[in-house]
């Protein structure tokens, strides 16, 4: 099933109230994300990327400007836009199976087939009755991905989903993420501060600068997967991104 979803972000600004001081965290963001893109927002920590994701998910409302999906303003959270956080945030009191089944339970639906095939897709069908504390970090994050994807979202929002994994697990998970994205054909919006990750996964990279966060650059990557880290095209984009972020040839 192909899900046509176009996200339009227009003149979006957002303030935080910090100790009675209005703090501008997002400044005039304009962005259009087309169906089935894999957009990666790259920027330093604490620059408001996560806030932007929360707004696309409908968990927070912007102070100014608008976010629309297919022309409809986002006012609340919806199962068509599911978030995967940096921590797996699996419910520790539920088994792997029940965690993946969460979306169906909330909507009072039953689709054991979908849960089962999702568990098979992430290779954890033998762990379905395990509790989260029995899983490794990578396994837990895979379950979190499964829990999100089983809802068949048209937009998957990924807030540094691999940020806390060790570098080897991370490489495996990057491959897996591309695999899932191609197989399930969702629109991916992901935040990371890892340039390599962005280069390997994205169809488009948005570079942001902090306080207040605004877009300073945009790169389209039309290469096929799997990508090679040392391909000339990637080396060039990497250089440009470093340059954009203020690092010259000395690094």
């Amino acid at each position, binding site marked *: 099933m192909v899900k046509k979803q176009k996200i339009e972000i227009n003149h979006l600004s957002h303030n935080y109230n910090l100790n009675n001081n209005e703090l501008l965290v997002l400044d005039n963001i304009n962005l259009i994300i087309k169906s089935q893109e894999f957009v990666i927002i790259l920027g330093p920590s604490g620059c408001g990327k996560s806030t932007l994701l*929360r707004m696309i*998910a*409908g*968990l927070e409302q912007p102070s100014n400007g608008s976010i629309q999906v297919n022309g409809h303003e986002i006012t609340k*959270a*919806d*199962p068509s*836009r*599911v*978030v995967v*956080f940096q*921590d797996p*945030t699996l*419910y*520790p*009191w*539920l*088994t792997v199976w029940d965690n993946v089944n*969460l*979306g169906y*339970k*909330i*909507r009072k639906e039953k689709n054991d087939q979908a849960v089962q095939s999702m568990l098979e897709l992430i290779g954890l069908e033998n762990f379905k009755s395990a*509790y*989260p*504390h029995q899983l490794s970090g990578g396994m837990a994050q895979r379950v979190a991905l499964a*829990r999100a994807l089983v*809802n068949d979202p048209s937009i998957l929002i990924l807030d540094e989903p691999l940020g806390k994994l060790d570098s080897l697990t991370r490489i495996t998970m990057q491959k897996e993420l591309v695999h899932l994205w191609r197989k399930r054909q969702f629109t991916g919006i992901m935040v990371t501060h890892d340039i390599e990750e962005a280069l390997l996964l994205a169809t488009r990279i948005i570079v942001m600068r902090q306080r207040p966060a605004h877009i300073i650059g945009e790169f389209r990557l039309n290469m096929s997967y799997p990508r090679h880290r040392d391909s000339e095209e990637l080396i060039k984009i990497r250089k440009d991104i470093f340059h954009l972020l203020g690092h010259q040839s000395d690094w």
Partner: protein
Amino acid sequence: MNPKVKIAYWPQVVAFIMWLGTACLTYFFKNADDFPRTTEFAYLCFSIAIFCALTLSSNKVRYYGSWLLALALFAGGWELIQAKFVMLPRPFFGAPQELLDVFITDWYRLLDSLLHSLTLLLGGYILGCFIGFSIGIGMGWSLHFGYWAHPILRFFGPLPPVAFLPLLFAVIPSSWLAGELLMAFAAAFPVAVLTWSGIAGVNPNYYDVARTMGAKSFFLIRHVAIPAALPFVFVGMFMALGSCFYMLVVAEMLGVKAGLGFYMQWAQGWAAYPNMYAALIIMAVMCTSFMTLLFKVRNNLLRWQKENIKW
């Protein structure tokens, strides 16, 4: 208990001999005073000796062999010191057969007292836990509820429930109902505070995850907030159980005219100290059974936790 570890036979063999010895000591040696049920106590010791002999092949029983031995020494020593030589002042210290006599002759009243204590304890505890749990959820979830509940909880919560005792017994004509309310009050405070802090401490991302999948408030409370707070709730319930035991004894000694506490008070009035020991033993069994039961419920509901202590 690891079944592969070899458990020694000798403690239980010695326990058999010692129980047999205690039985003989009781039966064949003359009492220093006129104690009832001496023959029955000898038979009891003999039965335990037989039990030791018959269960020698059981790993499970043999694990407690040293305890069987220690108890035999205690019973034998007690019989010798008190029944045969009366070395400790009477009536404060009785002989073992006197304790046995209480269980045989007064079992009906002990059972009746136990049932009264049980209803008082269970009723008050369950009511208190329910009230405390509801208050805790209300405070953790709704700012409006918290606005009113928080000051009240802060003002009255730390007050020892005993302080209400004279007032409640005067105002409420039924001392049983007053006792019930005291127990409920004793249980409600710790459960409310811990439920509240449990819910306040839930990882906010747990809610976000459910909300993006379409969850409404009821689902968030029932399936996210409550299970996440449950470990805290149980800490509160254990504290509540402790204060309920305490309140039970105080209420029964000071106002309620039934139950084990009342029985003890009565036994003291008649200087019937063996009766008091009997009531104490029954009370200890009751309290530890409740604790065990609560641990069982907790370990079952919280089996998803990494570590559970064994009671």
